[in-house]
């Protein structure tokens, strides 16, 4: 475990403290919610392919389950820290609460680099992780999902080990499973589509017709691709996307003023979301430096790649034409940029509202898995739209009523819901 100067858990606690003051939460509730309910830290011994035993460190942090079983991903990362997992578990609690799904927040991880592990070794890490935690997982307790450097394959190993321990089929234990193995239709699209559902509502509230708008998107991974696709389907025009170039170890922006064609770009995109710049040029795209996505003269910006992309240093490059920012990625806007955007009257849809489509659809997957009855895709996406729209309306109403930012309003609603659940249960 490596310690870092930036401590995400301290940041999460600081955010919580600020909202707790606004909500005038009592001291007991504050103490309960600013720390996780349960933390598991354990060793996972694995016999490696060379015959030696290596011991990995695993975590699971269950921040709060007052509103329902815990939900959160499992990360495989060499720099994983318990504090990172703590912070992420807290944010999961707020994200589930703002989406108003009956789940709490959790996060887990293993300190490892999957790039250096064979598939067999990765399988043993997954199975070892479950054996340590089996008593504290399950469809009614805590439901893991894929996250950084974990995939549907890892989830199936985890599920298989869990079911072997309990001697029954319990597909609702895990989400992110492949379709046909307990996965949900619509899960792939859910996060990107969810971003656009909230964006559509924002434009509607601002009295702007989607077909009169243009957008620039950072990233061309899963979230960005589906966000671009749906936004264009409802009439908008995306003029710029950006992507990471593995070979050059830098990012590029790809601009087409009359609108990018998702299918055309996908044909020249690798599986990590990297667009081939040579072939993109042949298709008529201008290839620009990666940070140019931010400076485009568009109405909407959708950062859908990484955290900390709009900062105090570059916020001034944003065009005065921009009216809405929809945060598809987690934490793309630094606090100082947040303040500058508010001064510029830019309507910002905060990350844990805009990108909650993923966890909402994970919840749907869990419900379907528990029933062992699976819905049609239009069923899934129809429900997703309503959930996302309702969440947006609740946040926007509060922001308007209290004259606060969308981010503050979202935090207030989420934390208030969790605090109320704790009170109702008699915990505080």
């Amino acid at each position, binding site marked *: 475990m490596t310690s870092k100067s930036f401590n995400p858990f301290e940041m999460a606690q600081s955010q919580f403290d600020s909202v707790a003051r606004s909500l005038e939460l009592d001291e007991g509730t504050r103490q309960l919610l600013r720390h996780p309910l349960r933390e598991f830290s354990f060793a996972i011994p694995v016999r490696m392919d060379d015959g030696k035993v290596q011991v990995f460190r695993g975590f699971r942090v269950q921040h709060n389950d007052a509103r329902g079983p815990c939900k959160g991903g499992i990360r495989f990362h060499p720099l994983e820290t318990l504090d990172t997992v703590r912070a992420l578990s807290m944010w999961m609690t707020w994200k589930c609460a703002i989406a108003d799904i009956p789940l709490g927040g959790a996060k887990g991880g293993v300190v490892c680099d999957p790039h250096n592990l064979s598939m067999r070794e990765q399988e043993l890490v997954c199975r070892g992780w479950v054996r340590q935690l089996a008593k504290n997982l399950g469809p009614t307790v805590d439901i893991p999902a894929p996250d950084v450097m974990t995939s549907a394959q890892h989830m199936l190993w985890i599920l298989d080990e869990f079911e072997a321990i309990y001697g029954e089929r319990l597909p609702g234990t895990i989400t992110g499973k492949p379709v046909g193995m307990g996965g949900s239709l619509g899960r792939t699209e859910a996060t990107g589509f969810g971003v656009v559902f909230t964006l559509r509502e924002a434009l509607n509230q601002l009295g702007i017709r989607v077909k009169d708008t243009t957008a620039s998107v950072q990233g061309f991974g899963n979230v960005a691709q589906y966000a671009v696709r*749906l936004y264009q389907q409802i009439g908008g025009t995306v003029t710029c996307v950006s992507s990471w170039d593995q070979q050059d170890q830098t990012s590029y922006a790809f601009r087409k003023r009359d609108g990018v064609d998702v299918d055309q770009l996908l044909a020249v995109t690798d599986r990590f979301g990297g667009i081939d710049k040579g072939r993109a040029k042949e298709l008529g795209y201008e290839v620009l430096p990666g940070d140019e996505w931010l400076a485009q003269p568009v109405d909407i910006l959708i950062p859908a790649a990484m955290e900390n992309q709009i900062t105090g240093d570059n916020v001034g490059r944003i065009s005065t034409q921009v009216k809405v920012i929809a945060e598809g990625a987690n934490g793309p806007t630094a606090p100082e940029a947040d303040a500058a955007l508010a001064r510029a009257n830019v309507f910002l849809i905060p990350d844990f509202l805009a990108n909650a489509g993923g966890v909402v659809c994970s919840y749907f997957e869990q419900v379907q898995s528990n029933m062992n009855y699976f819905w049609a895709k239009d069923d899934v996406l129809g429900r997703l739209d*309503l959930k996302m729209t309702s969440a947006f309306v609740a946040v926007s109403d509060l922001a308007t009523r209290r004259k606060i930012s969308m981010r503050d309003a979202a935090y207030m609603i989420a934390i208030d819901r969790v605090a109320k659940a704790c009170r109702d249960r008699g915990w505080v």
Partner: protein
Amino acid sequence: MTKLSPDEVPRFTREFFGGGECFSRIGEGELGGKARGLVFIKNTIESEIAAGRFPGVTVDIPTTTVIATGVFDAFVERNGLAALATSDTPDDRIALAFQAGEMPVEVVGDLRALVEQVHTPLAVRSSSLLEDAMFRPFAGVYQTKMIPNNQPDPNVRFRRLLEAIKFVYASVYSRRARSYLRTCDRSIADEKMAVIIQEVVGERHDRRFYPDLSGVGRSYNFYPTGGATPDEGVVNLALGLGKTIVDGGVTWSYSPAHPGAPPPFGSASDLLRNTQSEFWAVNMGDAPEYDPVAETEYLVKSDLHAAEMDDTLRWTASTYDGQRDRVVMGTGVDGPRVLTFAPLLEMHDLPFQDVVSALLDASGRAFGAAVEFEFAALLPRERGAPLRIAFLQVRPMVVSEAEVSIEDDELASPALLLASDRVMGNGADDTIRDVVFVRPERFEARDTRAIAGELERLNLRLLDEGRRYLLIGFGRWGSSDPWLGIPVAWGDICGAGAIVEATLPSMNVELSQGSHFFHNITSFQVSYLAVRHDRQPNIDWDWLRAQTLVEETEHVCHVRSASPLRIKVDGRSGRGAIWHA
């Protein structure tokens, strides 16, 4: 009626009943013909039937939202269904392929929101672009589906709504629609479908949901009787859903200028036999079987006894007095009920007739042409309760002004093929040489379904060859009951330029006179002649059999005459005839 811009119609705000707008749209694109008619009638109501003109009466259109044509395009494209339009895939397989398709993500949230707040029946109707562009009716070509929408689980309601929309979508690619479009010189590639989701006007009675009456008003009457004139128009009324009228079932017909005129029946017992005895309702109970590709999946037919139990006959029924062989107005005495609508039309307690006449006038003026509209009404059960008349759709009528006369000596000509004193249409034609006729010597009522199939194939071939034809068959064309006639849809016979509906001793029924295909016949100016076997002159079967045989199937012959037939139909006098020289 000017073209309707989609921007004139507000977006659906996810509040179907409480949103302040009774007419909204979902998605991008055009809104189609029915939607345009509805906006038109809404505007007409607002301007002509101003609040207060008819106290105690609500005149409106049912709450409606239209899924624009762009959604159909996206549905077809994203589900890879376009190839079906030119394939030989049977209609039922096309319908199933559409059912398996996914609705575009842009609209599923709106549809989900709609069913989450609405628990009463919904009608899902086609509103096609060509219908709009051509002023042509697509009745009997595209589908309509009623759904009860009363299941406690919103998931079930949502699925049923999507199934109904996909069912309507699939009808664009049906063989019958493709044939029909060819008669309009259009291809399926030109067609786009909007879908109307509309509140079903009615009330729930036990497991049935229906209006007290449905009606069709026409400002031009092709069949004037008694002292009525064509320009006075005609109104057809039926108990329950309008399907009875649209399908050409038995209805009550009257002239708005003479609502109390005695009906054209020889006796009260005739009247009893020839008035509506069954009605359609939405089935609010369990559907008999799951069948998303059946139009009538959620419809139920009931008899007048059920209606009396529901207390829906108060304004619409009279009673047959068998001892005196007369009909007594109302339901105050025991006896068989007869749907004469006399309490409504003769008693003047409700301004029903005044409102309908005012609407016929107003829409005729606004269109600048003869019009036809469908409506449904809820009649008050208590004194002082409001009367509601809701307009479901409106369209212009095609009325030929040609002067045609048929002299008596023409009817005595040896070249006479057939003659009729019950016709529909108006005009003369001397271009048709092909005759498709059901073989009288082989005709049996049990074969009518097979005959319909043979006719459909012949129709397709003649369409390919670009030949219009004279069609002769027995019983009610388009009957939903195969024992009363040949159960074709309009698309199965749409290449016919003239249609003869005849009786036989073995098929001696009251003829439909074209009512099943009223819209199509009038719109395409097809001549329609009813010929009874027991009246002279009869059809000259010998001449027909002597013509060049083009094709013969088990029940149907296709022959070709060396010279064109001469067809004359005088809509004013109701007479028509066809000569072979």
